[in-house]
């Protein structure tokens, strides 16, 4: 079968949880042909893949949010003089207002080349829509700034609607957002089934990002959040099947408007056989803590370093190994500087390493993320009989404490995100009681073996493909 996978800002451009998962997923479905439709930010990264694409990836279509080259077909309609029908106007209005537009109407406008992104945003029609929204909903915001903010918000989305739509038998999006909209576009255009797999809850992540950001005008934050909810709604309301990693995520998806009958939980899986055979660390005078994590703000590595620094005051001979590439160079530099300042001797930045090899040197692992879905690094650590200290994000609590009928016991400790003292306490407990640590490691291994095996996951996805077609 020819399956189009839609990804945004992950595979095959950067390493990370979703990327690793996607790479293995494709490799493990040799019977299918995959078309990658990937969205990056800047066009400079075109073709710069960090993965060697498996043989069953037959096509790659790249689209970039910050691409401003105009395709010939759309250049002609830069001057906007198309008179929209009242239905089209209504749906474009809903799009600008970030309500719930009928996407098929908008797709048709762009598909038939009657409207172009630039043409529309430069038109009187757009200004009229904007003015009327301002009058209705935002009478107190700066008119001009909000106008430009709105334009820059809509521009990348509308530009994406102008890109080439690859043909496939199934559209499988690994993300909502822009990717979700494109997947919906492809599915509607070629009347093919649509599947969504969400690792995290994209909309919520964007929402948090926007609330914290300083690049979005404070008065426009609300609208930007609505924008991402609108994008997600495109695929939520059109998908034939929606999967997520854990039940709490499923509840969130339903809350956000997904049909409960379409939502299923498909947990992540790891190659248990490969990891469970890694020997435990030979006891020495050190306690080695590992963090398998990209250097990115969302991973909150600074809190990890602070918490570890506290720990070094309480426990002698501890080491922290931070394993992972730089995702955000600036942030990484700040982390290096912080570590250098606080505990230069005992914090080791390894860069990207072979986890299976390195795991032999570790006693337990830590994850301090502010947001996660179902982190692979925790599953890997568990399969290798290493207990975990994690923040209470995503389904970490299910992984550590077990869910539903799972009465195996705890496989580590949970602390609220960004709570330094809690993390220090948890690490301290792990460090001082070796017996308990080994016990929890064994529970972790058993849980991974029972619930989080790779083949189980692949089978479930195979079944979904068969079901929707």
């Amino acid at each position, binding site marked *: 079968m020819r399956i189009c996978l839609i990804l945004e800002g992950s595979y095959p451009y950067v390493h990370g949880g979703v990327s690793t998962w996607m790479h293995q997923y494709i490799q493990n479905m040799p019977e299918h042909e995959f078309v990658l439709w990937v969205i990056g930010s800047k066009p400079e990264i075109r073709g710069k893949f960090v993965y060697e694409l498996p043989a069953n990836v037959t096509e790659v279509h790249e689209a970039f949010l910050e691409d*401003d080259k105009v395709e010939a077909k759309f250049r002609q309609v830069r001057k906007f003089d198309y008179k929209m029908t009242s239905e089209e106007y209504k749906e474009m209005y809903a799009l600008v207002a970030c309500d719930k537009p009928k996407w098929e109407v908008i797709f048709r406008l762009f598909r038939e080349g009657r409207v172009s992104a630039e043409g529309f945003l*430069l038109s*009187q029609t*757009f200004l009229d829509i904007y*003015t009327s929204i301002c009058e209705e909903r935002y009478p107190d915001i700066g*008119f001009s*700034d909000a*106008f*430009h903010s709105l334009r*820059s918000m809509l521009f990348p989305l509308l530009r994406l609607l102008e890109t080439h739509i690859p043909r496939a038998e199934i559209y499988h999006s690994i993300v909502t957002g822009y990717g979700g909209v494109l997947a919906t576009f492809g599915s509607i255009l070629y009347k093919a089934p649509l599947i969504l797999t969400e690792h995290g809850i994209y909309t919520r992540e964007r929402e948090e990002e926007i609330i914290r950001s300083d690049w979005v005008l404070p008065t426009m934050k609300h609208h930007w959040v609505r924008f991402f909810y609108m994008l997600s709604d495109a695929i939520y309301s059109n998908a034939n099947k929606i999967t997520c990693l854990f039940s709490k995520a499923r509840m969130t998806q339903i809350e956000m408007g997904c049909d409960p009958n379409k939502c299923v939980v498909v947990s992540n899986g790891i190659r248990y056989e490969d990891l469970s055979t890694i020997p435990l660390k030979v006891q020495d005078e050190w306690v080695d803590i590992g963090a398998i994590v990209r250097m990115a703000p969302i991973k909150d590595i600074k809190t990890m370093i602070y918490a570890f620094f506290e720990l070094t005051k309480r426990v002698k001979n501890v080491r922290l190994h931070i394993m992972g590439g730089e995702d955000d160079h600036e942030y990484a530099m700040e982390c290096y500087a912080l570590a250098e300042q606080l505990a230069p001797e005992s914090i080791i930045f390894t860069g990207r390493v072979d986890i299976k090899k390195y795991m032999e040197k570790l006693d337990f692992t830590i994850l301090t993320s502010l947001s996660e879905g179902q982190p692979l690094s925790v599953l890997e650590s568990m399969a290798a009989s290493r207990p975990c200290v994690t923040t209470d994000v995503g389904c970490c609590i299910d992984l550590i404490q077990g869910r539903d009928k799972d009465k195996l016991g705890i496989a580590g400790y949970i602390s609220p995100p960004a709570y330094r003292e809690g993390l220090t306490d948890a690490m301290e407990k792990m460090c001082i009681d070796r017996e308990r640590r080994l016990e929890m490691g064994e529970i972790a291994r058993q849980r991974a073996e029972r619930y989080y095996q790779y083949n189980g996951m692949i089978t479930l996805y195979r079944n979904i493909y068969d079901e929707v077609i």
Partner: protein
Amino acid sequence: MAGIGFELRKIYKSKKLFSEQRMYLYAGVFYGGPLFLGVVLVMLVSAICVYAGMTKTERYLLTSMITYAVIFSLFFSNVFSALLGRYVSDMIYSKRYEKILPTFLGSSLLMVFLGEFAYGIFLAFSGISLGEMIFCLVLFAELVVLWSTINFITSIKEYKMVLYAFIVAVLVTVGIGILFILIGFKSTQGMLFSVCVGYGTILYNTIQVLYKTLPAPKEDITSFEFLRWFDMYPRLLFLGLGVYAGAFLHIISTWFTSNGIQIQGLFYNSPFYDVPAFYAFMTTIVSTINFSVFVEVEFYLKFKRYYWLYNNQGTWGDIKEAEKEMLIVLKNELKYLAWRQTFATIIVIFVGGQILEILPLGFNNLMLGYFRVLCLAYGVYGIAQSVMLVLLYFDDVNGASFCAITFGILNVIATIVNFYIPSIYYGFGFLICNIIFFILVVARLEKVTNRLPYMVLSRQPIVNREKEGIFSKFEKMLVRGGFDEKINQNKKRV
């Protein structure tokens, strides 16, 4: 260019006795002075020629050479003025005041260079002597720079100096002219020389004023950066061409009709038409003054506030309110301008006509008829041109240049028609062109003011695409060729 009006307003606000009259006097001297000076000089030089007993051909050739220099230099510098105006206001907006003086020098150099080249070719084939040719070129260069200087002056603190300079210029010209006659040097060259010295005096003084009012340049003494604006706003070039070609084409074309006289070589004139046309053209000063004293000042305050709101978090309600206020002021001021121009035109047609008849200018009935029609036409022209400038304020380069180019094309058509109609109807074509020009700009202004937020916001590009056109390359060539540097070095050495 906005600016001088503000200085004038200060005089008005000081509420001294006759402050309003003084304001008009200064503005009149400032805008009308150089042109008026041309008329006065032509008259005086003619008088001296008569007194010295020079031939009629010599006299006509002399006035014709001055007229040509005035018309071609006005045309040449005004073609660039819309664009330079735009560049200077952009520099003022981005607070790069130190760029203005180098731009004045750079643009003057370029205009003189190109203008002399073009005018030189014309003169070479015109059949005048080498000496006359040199003086014609000097006069042309002086005038090109003079019109440009007036466009660049944004405040007029030294208005008295300008006024005195005019008087000095007249005295110098007459003095030297008479001196030449007394020593027995009765030639057109001598007269041309005196006119060159006269205009040289006034040019020197206006440049002094310019230097006093503009901030000194930081590093570059000349700058050709404005050339890039040609690529950004190529239409402004056509706008200048349309408006000023339109204004003078009818005069030039008459030279070649049955009414025209070939004086010598390529020098023609049509005294029956030229003289009334010049006097009529001077009535546009009413609009020019009113525009800079009232429209630009009163309207500009509201205009600034309106744009300020866009840049400073103004809400839709604030903007709507400010827009309403601004448009009321604009419409009122334009209405007053139109009334003042109309009133002035009517007075000039009746009273001015009478005076011209009395003066020993040889005004006959035909000339009086031309004068009346042309006064009316230039009156409409003055108003229409002011409205067009408002369009440029609203950044409607496309609309303004469309109107200007249409005006230019209509004038070409009217000119062709002129050759096929009886000479008593000359001037009517120009009048009709102006009425159409007026209707076009007013309709356009109506359209633009109805969709101002669109003009301000929507037309701004979403993505900035650098556009390098022929003029940017020309700028690079000038800079790369060391043209800029060499001049700068020389200046530094001096």
